[in-house]
């Protein structure tokens, strides 16, 4: 006899059958029927049609049947509010029952029935139950106030329940106290301004007494509440700490972490010279370590919190490095967190062990983990100076393994090591150069190019190396292109005689053949810089770079302090203040650590931290490649030169006749193809026309009849990945029809034929409306423009992101795949205008739960104006160059 029988259905329609059984005279049959109803409910079936029949069973002495009916009521009362009233009488009667269990059950269930009409009837019984002689009823009633508040906050305030609840904090029974605290905390969360939990030394004392005697869950509520209190001086802080420390030995890890939060916060007030301070520090380590022997889910949360604690007070766990060593069968989310903490704890004393471990991890199977381990080695080198040499040699060992992704990660971190310890480890460059061909990830390529450019004078064939990268310039990612541009300019400044051709080539590639404004801007700036004042160029481009700091990706201190107040909460898992992610308009009070000085001032004021602090950006001390010379763009380049630079002052630059010969020949050299007018600002027309064409397209595009904006073509499939076929394209919408404008370029040495295209299923069912028509075979170095009409009748599948489109293109050589994002506006219909009534009706049809509301703050209505003008300023700035 198991409950699975309740799931079996009969032929005659389940609901009908159940209805008959529920109205049966036999008690036993009724109970069985209710059980069947509950069983259907548990699997999410809708049995709300049986509401009146089930409620009829409520009048019974059988407690089990009563409980089952209550279970049903809680689930369905909301959908049948009028019927639910039928149940009220029974509830009111049950609240008078001599059995406390039944009184409590009635008040508890009533609170769960989220129907406005019922709440009115609930008030009287609830008031009685809050003052019930039996603590079990009182503690149940305390939670019920929180439930009622959730349904109707005003009612709770009007009825004075909040005051009754506050009185319960002084109740003689610890369980009642704990539940009152829990209820008040929950209510306070939706009322951040109200002073519900008005904590004073007396109430704190009561809480601490209850703490020792209540259940583990109650302890969590009380500890979380204590953490919001600010002791008036260090003595009070110490006495609270003393009474909270025993909780560190609790078997429930949530209790332990809540206790850690209280201690970490109040410790801030203790003087470091105090003996007690040292004792406390020592007491904190073992419980934190113990958390790591629990289930992996608990470990994960614990590790996220330990990560904060280690940043705030590294001394607590500095001797516990080994517990963070990774076991091969740890879940990946635990592994990555452990690794992060290992680096934070790395010091001169333990670096040898850490490195040996990291090296071990670098041979594991999991690619993500291996990558992070290799990065970690680099971070160790930057953090612990004495270990740098060992780290570099470990990295070299790893490069010898020739495992592709290991090599690439190693090169990225070695670049950072060079920036931290210049002129120390350059001997390894030769080894790095050996692996040049195997690099296929943009970050690694960019790092390698940076190294070659930075140390060009020590690498004999630097020009050859960079030239080899330049061949596929257009196929590279922006990161690599920018880096390549900078590296070649550096090379030119270091070895001007041999590399004029190269620099000319890269400048023209960057300024004329590229659609990327960053690249063009940087190209122009270098060009101008080189042509106006090579000395300045040298000073700027080859300037000594600031050393990168060891404080890599630490959490910003004010944010860290705030997060310490949120230990054990979701905020601590995400490392973001609750204001950054907590739902809804509920304002969140910013918490801050109490000041060390023993003052009477309240520090709990919400003003201490700026509202919506955008501080979750970590100070990124290692600049990404894009930034290495990014600040160049902000340089004031001095008064614009209005004519061709004729100043001969630069001739003084030794033998290098940069302007007379160097740059002039650079411009008018034999290999010169298109006159780069940009070099001569007088001829501004050309670069504006080419370089800024897309900007003008944008404006003209808006004005055209076709209506929608057309993004410039972007390279979707670089030739390198598609055996020489390069595809760039964009999407357009013209008078109701969508099309995909493609440009196919053959960069291979053989003729391409037999083109075909196919889309994967996507969010909006985009599909080609006609086959891909390429009439003539595409011969090498030829390109063809095609407009492929699209429709939206294909099969639909939700993509991530929503506007992702996966495309397969076939030709006589192979099938290639790429994915692209289409702008959503191509899907918008032109006749989308709706009349007011229609719009409002449609709006109402959207279910409430799909509606999200949020407030945009600090947004003055005229904000749009500067926005526009700054956008406009772009075209005016460039001619000024």
């Amino acid at each position: 006899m198991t409950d699975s029988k309740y799931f079996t259905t009969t032929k005659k329609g389940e609901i009908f059958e159940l209805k008959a059984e529920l109205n049966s005279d036999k008690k036993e049959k009724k109970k069985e029927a209710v059980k069947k109803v509950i069983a259907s409910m548990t699997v999410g079936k809708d049995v709300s049609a049986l509401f009146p029949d089930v409620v009829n069973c409520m009048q019974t002495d059988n407690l089990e049947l009563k409980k089952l009916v209550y279970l049903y009521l809680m689930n369905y009362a909301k959908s049948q509010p009028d019927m639910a009233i039928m149940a009220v009488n029974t509830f009111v009667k049950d609240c008078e029952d001599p059995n406390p269990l039944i009184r409590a059950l009635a008040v508890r269930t009533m609170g769960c029935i989220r129907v406005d009409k019922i709440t009115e009837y609930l008030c009287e019984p609830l008031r009685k139950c809050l003052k019930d002689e039996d603590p079990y009823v009182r503690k149940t009633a305390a939670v019920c106030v929180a439930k009622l508040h959730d349904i109707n906050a005003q009612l709770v305030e009007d009825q004075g329940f909040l005051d009754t609840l506050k009185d319960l904090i002084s109740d003689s029974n610890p369980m009642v106290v704990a539940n009152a605290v829990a209820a008040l905390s929950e209510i306070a969360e939706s009322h951040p301004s109200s002073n519900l939990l008005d904590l004073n030394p007396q109430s704190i004392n009561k809480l601490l007494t209850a703490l020792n005697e209540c259940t583990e869950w109650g302890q969590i509520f009380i500890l979380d509440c204590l953490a919001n209190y600010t002791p008036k001086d260090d003595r009070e802080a110490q006495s609270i700490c003393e009474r909270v420390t025993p909780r560190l030995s609790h078997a429930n890890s949530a209790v332990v972490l809540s206790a850690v939060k209280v201690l970490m916060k109040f410790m801030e007030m203790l003087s470091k010279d105090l003996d007690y301070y040292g004792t406390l520090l020592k007491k904190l380590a073992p419980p934190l370590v113990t958390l790591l022997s629990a289930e992996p889910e608990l470990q994960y949360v614990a590790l996220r919190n330990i990560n904060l604690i280690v940043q705030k007070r590294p001394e607590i766990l500095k001797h516990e490095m080994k517990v963070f060593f990774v076991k091969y069968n740890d879940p990946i989310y635990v592994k990555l967190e452990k690794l992060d903490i290992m680096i934070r704890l790395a010091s001169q004393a333990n670096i040898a062990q850490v490195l040996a471990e990291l090296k071990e991890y670098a041979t594991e199977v999991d690619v993500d983990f291996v990558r992070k381990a290799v990065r970690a080695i680099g971070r160790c080198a930057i953090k612990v100076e004495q270990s740098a040499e060992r780290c570099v040699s470990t990295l070299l060992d790893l490069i010898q393994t020739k495992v592709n992704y290991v090599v690439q990660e190693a090169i990225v971190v070695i670049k950072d090591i060079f920036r931290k310890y210049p002129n120390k480890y350059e001997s390894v460059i030769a080894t790095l150069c050996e692996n040049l061909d195997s690099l296929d990830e943009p970050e690694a390529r960019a790092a390698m190019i940076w190294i070659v450019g930075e140390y060009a004078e020590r690498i004999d064939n630097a020009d050859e190396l960079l030239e080899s990268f330049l061949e596929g310039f257009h196929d590279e990612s922006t990161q690599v292109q920018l880096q390549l541009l900078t590296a070649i300019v550096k090379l030119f400044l270091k070895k001007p005689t041999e590399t004029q051709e190269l620099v000319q080539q890269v400048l023209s590639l960057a300024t004329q053949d590229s659609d990327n404004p960053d690249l063009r801007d940087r190209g122009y700036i270098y060009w101008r810089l080189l042509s106006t004042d090579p000395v300045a160029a040298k000073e700027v481009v080859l300037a000594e770079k600031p050393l990168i700091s060891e404080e890599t990706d630490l959490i910003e201190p004010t944010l860290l302090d705030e997060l310490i107040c949120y230990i054990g909460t979701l905020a601590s898992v995400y490392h973001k203040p609750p204001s950054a992610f907590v739902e809804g308009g509920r304002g969140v009070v910013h918490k801050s650590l109490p000041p060390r000085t023993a003052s009477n001032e309240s520090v709990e004021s919400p003003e201490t931290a700026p509202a919506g602090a955008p501080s979750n950006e970590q100070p990124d001390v290692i600049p990404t490649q894009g930034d290495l010379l990014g600040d160049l763009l902000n340089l004031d380049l001095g008064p614009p030169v209005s004519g061709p630079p004729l100043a001969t002052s630069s001739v003084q630059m030794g033998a290098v006749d940069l302007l007379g010969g160097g740059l002039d020949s650079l411009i008018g050299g034999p290999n010169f193809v298109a006159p780069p007018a940009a070099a001569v600002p007088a001829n501004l027309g050309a670069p504006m026309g080419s370089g800024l064409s897309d900007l003008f397209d944008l404006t003209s595009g808006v004005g055209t009849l076709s209506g929608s904006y057309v993004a410039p073509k972007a390279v979707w499939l670089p030739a390198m990945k598609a055996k020489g076929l390069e595809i760039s394209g964009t999407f357009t919408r013209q008078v109701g029809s969508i099309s995909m404008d493609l440009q196919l370029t053959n960069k291979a040495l053989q003729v391409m034929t037999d083109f075909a295209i196919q889309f994967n299923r996507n969010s909006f069912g985009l599909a080609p409306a006609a086959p891909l028509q390429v009439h003539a075979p595409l011969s090498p170095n030829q390109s063809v423009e095609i407009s492929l009409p699209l429709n939206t009748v294909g099969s639909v599948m939700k993509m991530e992101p929503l506007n992702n489109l996966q495309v397969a293109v076939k030709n006589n050589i192979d099938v290639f795949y790429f994915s692209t994002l289409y702008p959503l506006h191509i899907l918008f219909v032109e006749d989308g205008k709706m009349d007011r009534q229609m719009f409002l009706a449609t709006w109402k049809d959207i279910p409430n739960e799909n509606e999200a509301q949020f407030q945009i703050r600090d947004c003055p209505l005229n904000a749009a104006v500067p926005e526009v003008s700054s956008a406009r300023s772009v075209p005016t700035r460039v001619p000024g160059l």
Partner: protein
Amino acid sequence: MIHSLFLINCSGDIFLEKHWKSVVSQSVCDYFFEAQEKAADVENVPPVISTPHHYLISIYRDKLFFVSVIQTEVPPLFVIEFLHRVADTFQDYFGECSEAAIKDNVVIVYELLEEMLDNGFPLATESNILKELIKPPTILRSVVNSITGSSNVGDTLPTGQLSNIPWRRAGVKYTNNEAYFDVVEEIDAIIDKSGSTVFAEIQGVIDACIKLSGMPDLSLSFMNPRLLDDVSFHPCIRFKRWESERVLSFIPPDGNFRLISYRVSSQKYVDGSTRICHHISVCWVELTFPCFMLTVGYLNSSLLPLAMAHEETRKNCLVAIPVYVKHSISFKENSSCGRFDVTIGPKQNMGKTIEGVTVTVHMPKVVLNMNLTPTQGSYTFDPVTKVLTWDVGKITPQKLPSLKGLVNLQSGAPKPEENPSLNIQFKIQQLAISGLKVNRLDMYGEKYKPFKGVKYVTKAGKFQVRT
């Protein structure tokens, strides 16, 4: 607080849902399934997932996912602990925590969930109290219920609910009064290629089975309590007594429960004091209760590890490693085979027999098959999961067990980069490897004389040997 709970099986069916506030649609689980897909392995699903309107906090237990839905800021550990408690309760009630068991008892499950949480606040989670409110299913009871029409829902307030000792019910009666303690220690260790210990610590627990009538007040003392400085206690233990006298004093719950768990690490603490208890060797306290399991090798087992610890203090290692492994696993370059040779032997085993030895190895993906010969025990290799399991059995020092042979690799595939780690399981009876010893158990508050006993066992926990 906890809003809703969904139970999901491995094939992704939601087979039970419970809502403590308003009803949340099942579709919220789609975010969970998405994360599950990304994680590839069920164990790698991240425990905290954020969705646009909710947070999903989940645990993976007994091939089931317990996914809870959270709407407000709430301590995730609290949720995870609670979910584990729910799983424990199912285990306790139905003997196993499986989809079948839950479906078979769905009404009881629903009643339990309702009793454990009210509006997202935990209500009654102690098994003692729950069992008074809702009786666990037994065949006898269901027969009786169907005849008498009575139910398995208790209709009086559980006595423990409000007392200061919520974990114990009143009016417990036994004809045989017994109190048994199991000291179980697990060694977590990472041993590196060369056989030296990278990391080792002992995770110990004392599980109790107490069947005593009335309200007994127990005190348990140790020969060497100073070993225990990193402990987690059952709520019944009086912390003050422990702090001042290093005695565990408590009124026990009825039945089986975990009294304490503790950790003994290989490291010295900040103050530089090693955790060696010198007093042990000089004091010999007479055992007042009959320890049947305790008689053999008392001297050996308590003194030896400590003596050893003393020797190795400078290397600050307190954790004895009872086995050693000799291994050579190699793959030849440009050939589709490799060699596998593993030998296991006793080391620091305090003269006890090491039994129940199993070696598990996750071989690299390119391994097709293995052709091995064990000198003892039997082995299996699962070509799908690439897991090699060698069931060794007992280690006899005269003839060390070994497993040797050839590894067949996928032809043409590159030589595997990673070296597999060996996972070792073993068991040593009548020994607590940390050297922890129960001294005596005293009972106050009741007049009768109980049977008392202590059993020690050491096991391998996460014991890994890198190759």
